[in-house]
C-alpha cells in the first residue's frame, strides 16, 4: 500500500509488490494518458512528474514513491504546452506525446525560454518514432505564444 497525491487528488493505492508507478496509474487509477511503450526505461513515453521531477514511471516502483506528489498528462490537460503541441503539429500517432509534453513542461518550469540546445538536451530521452522532433522543438520554443 502506498499513498500518492496524483494531479492534486489523494489516493491510497494497493499495487502488488513490484508494481510500477506506470501500471498503478494506468490499471488502478485508470489514468491511461501515461503510456507504456518499452516498459524498461528506454523511450520516455511513460514520463510523469514526481515531486516536479520528470520520472520514468515504467521503471519506478510505486512503493518507492510513497507520499510523493505525482503529475501526469491528465493533470496538465489545460497547460499551454498541450495547445502548443497541437498548434505546431508536434505529434503524429500521438503515442509518445503525453510523455513528450510532461518532459517539456518540466523543462519550461525550470527555464521559461530554453535554448535549442537546452530543448534537445532535455528532450533527448523521449523517443518519437514518427519523427515529430522538429515540430516538438518548435512547440517548446513557442509555448508561450
Amino acid at each position, binding site marked *: 500500500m502506498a499513498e500518492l497525491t496524483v494531479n492534486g487528488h489523494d489516493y491510497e493505492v494497493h499495487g502488488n509488490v513490484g508494481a510500477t508507478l506506470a501500471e498503478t496509474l494506468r490499471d488502478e487509477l485508470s489514468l*491511461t494518458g501515461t503510456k507504456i*511503450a518499452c516498459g524498461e526505461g528506454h523511450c520516455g513515453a511513460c514520463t510523469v512528474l514526481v515531486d516536479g521531477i520528470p520520472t520514468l514511471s515504467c521503471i519506478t516502483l510505486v512503493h518507492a514513491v510513497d507520499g510523493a506528489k505525482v503529475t501526469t498528462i*491528465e493533470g496538465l490537460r489545460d497547460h499551454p504546452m498541450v495547445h502548443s*503541441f497541437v498548434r505546431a503539429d508536434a505529434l503524429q500517432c*500521438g*503515442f509518445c506525446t503525453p510523455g513528450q509534453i510532461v518532459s517539456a513542461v518540466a523543462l519550461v518550469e525550470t527555464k521559461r525560454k530554453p535554448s535549442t540546445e537546452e530543448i*534537445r538536451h532535455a528532450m533527448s530521452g523521449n*523517443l518519437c518514432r514518427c519523427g515529430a522532433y522538429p515540430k516538438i522543438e518548435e512547440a517548446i520554443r513557442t509555448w508561450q505564444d
Partner: protein
Amino acid sequence: MARLIRTEKEVEGRYEEVWLVVDEDALEQWPAGPREIVGRPAERVDGLERARGEAVYTADVKLPGMLHTAVLRSPYAHARVARIDVSPALAQPGVHAAIGPADLDQLEEECGYQGTPVAAVCADTYEQARAALAAIDIEWEQLEVVLDPDDAVARKQLVGEPRERARGDYEAGLAEADVVVQGEYRTQVVLHNSMETHQAVVQWLGDTLEVYISTQYIWGIREEISDTLGIPGDKIRVVCHYMGGGFGSKNSPDDFTFIAIELARRTHRPVRCALTRREENLATGNRNATIQRLTIGAKTDGTLTALGGEYVNATGWSGWSSPVEGPMQQLYSCPNVKTTTHAAKINQPPMKAFRAPGFVEGTFGLEALLDVLAAKLEIDPLELRRRNYASSDPGDDRPYSGKNLLECYSRAQPHWDRRHDVRAQSTATVKRGVGMASQVWYGGGGPPSYAWIRVGSDGRATVVTAMQDIGTGSRTAMAQIAAEELGIPLEHVTVTLGDSARGPFASISAGSSTIPSMGPAVRAAAADAKRQILEIAAQRHELDEEQLDIKGGNVVSSDGKLDTPLAELVGLLESAQILGKGARGPNPAGMQVLTFGVQVAEVAVDIETGEVWVERIAAVHDVGRVINPLGAESQIEGGIIQGIGHTLSEQRLHDPRTGQILTTSLDAYKLPTIADVPEIVSELIDEPDAHLTNLGSKGLGEPPIIPTAAAIANAIRDATGAEVHELPITREEMLRALEEAKERERAAAPAGV
C-alpha cells in the same frame, strides 16, 4: 450507373487485376492552388485528444473481466519442439487457459526464427501469465541454422521464385558503353519499432467477434480472420480509433490476434494479447537486409546504356521479396536493364513491408553508384540525372499520369548550389560536402474505397467511413476535403472512423494510399450531400439550384439575394439528416501513377574518428495536390528522420553463430532522438495530377524516406572521396571507406611520387 470493370490495383508496388464496380467519378478537379480549406495548413482535428492522453489506443482498451496473454516463443533461430505439455501452466496462479501447437495453427512446432510463437497462456494479470510460461514442459531439438543470404541462395533455399526483369539487350548495352562502373552495396535489417507495440483485445459476443487492434487495415483484419476461421465478415467487428504507429508492420492480424481469439473462445472472457517491446523487436517484421551487386554502363555524355542488378533480399523465414530492383527498373530512362532478385530464406524473423519496402534499399545502391559514374565522367551529378530523365515509364512506355521531377530538380538547384560554400567550410579533420538523390515510388491509391456523409439539421457534417488514421493525419485531411466540398467551416465537420461495423469499406493505410484512395470518396460523398441540400434550398426559396451554392456555412445565391445559414435551411427538417455517399473512381487506364522527388543532404565527416553528422536536408517532392501543408511537412520530416536512422544508427544485430537476435531493446536498437535531427527544409510541387481522381492527390507517407540514405552517402563522397557501401554508416564503415579511398588515391598516383 454502376459500372463493372476489370482494373489493375497496386499496393506497395505489387499489382493485381481485380473486378471493380465503379460509380462515375463525375466531379471536376478543383483548380490548382490553395482553396478555402484544402491546401491550407490545418491543425490535426484529433490533436487535442491525442496530446491530452484522452485518445483510447488499443493499449488502453480495458474490457470487464479481460484476461492477459503471455506467449512462449522459440529461444532458438531454428529448432523443433520435440515434446510439449502445456497443462502444468493451468495449475499456476491466475491462469485460465493454455494452448500449444496442437491447439492452434499459428503456434508452431518447427521454429524457423527466434521469436516463433509456440504456446500461449492467459491469466488474470500479465505477470501471472508470464510466470506460468515457465511451467510449460517443453523439450527442444535444435536444428542447423542458415544465416548467410548468399549461402541460402546457393542452396536454393528461397522464399518464392527468383524474380527476373529485363528490357532491351543488357549485354549489348554494356558493349555500347564507354564507361562501366560496378559496386556491391549492402543494407541492414531495420525494425519498425512503432511506439505502440502490436496488440489486440478480443471478445466473443454470441457468434460475433469483436477485435480491438492496433492496425493499418481494419478491413484486411476482418477479411483474414473471416477467411482463416470461416466466420462471416459481418460477424467480425474490427475497431481501431487511434493507433500508435505502424510503418507497414500492422497490415494483418498476425499470430497474436489468433492467439487472443482462441483463448477468448476457450475462456468466454475478453482477452488481451499485447507484445512487449522485446517481442516487438523479434517477431513483428522488419525491413530485411539486402545485398545489391550493381552495374551501370554509360556513354561519355552520361547517357545510360545498361543497368544491371543482382539482388538478394535476406527475407527471413517467410515473407515476400520486396522490390529492391524497382528504382533501377523505373527511375531512369535506359533501354537495357536486367535485374534478378532472390529472396533468401534464412533463420531470421520474417520481413514485412516497411515504408517504401525495397525502394529505400534499392535507391541507396543505385543512386550511390550513379554518383561514382558521375565522378568518373566528370559530370555534375544533378545534370547526370537530368540527362537520363524518363518522360514515359521506362518499363512499358506507359505515359505518366503526372510527373514533375524536372521541376523538383529545378527547385532543388539552389540547395545543390550550396555545395561550394559547404565544402569550403571543411577543416583539416572535419570535411563537409553535399549529395543528392532522386526518388520514385507508387502512391496513387485506388478503388474500392467508400465514404458516407451525414449533414444534421444544425448544419454540421459527419464523415463516416471505416478507415483508420495511423498518425499520418488522414482524419484531418478527410475533414478538410469534406468541409471544402460542402462549403462549411472545418470546425463543422467531424470524422468518425476506425470501426468496421460503423462505416463502409475503406482503403488500407499503407502504400501511401490513404489520401489518394479515401480523399476522392469523401469528396464524392460531400458533393452528393451538397447536391441534395441545394435541391432542397431551390424548392424552399423557389430558385434555380444552378444559382445556389454553399459558402462559409451559408446557402447563397449567385445574385446575392439569398445568404442564409445552412442550419436554418436544414433546421426545417428537425431530426432528419441529409445523407451523401461517395466511392473512389478508377485510376486512369493505361497510365503509370507514381510519385517523384529529390533530396539534397549536407554532411560533416570527422575523418579521424569516422563520425558523420547530417547537418541539413532539403527535400522537394511531387505528390500532386497537397491537402494539408502542415501535416505534409510533418510527413516529410518524419520520413527523413527515419531515413537518417536507417542511414546512420539503426541496425538489428544477430549472433552470426546461432542466429539469435542481440538487439531487442530500445537501448540496443538505436532510433534517432531529437538531438540527431538536422535542419530540414521541405517543399512540395503541389500541382494536381490532372488524370488522377477528382482530387489529383497522391500519397506522401513513403516518398520522403526513399532518397535520404543515398543523398547522405553521396554527400559523404562529396566531402571525403570515400565510397560507403554499407548501411548503417557506422564509424567502422566510414573509416573503412576512408581507408579505401586513400588506397585508391595511392594506386592512382604516378610512380615515384
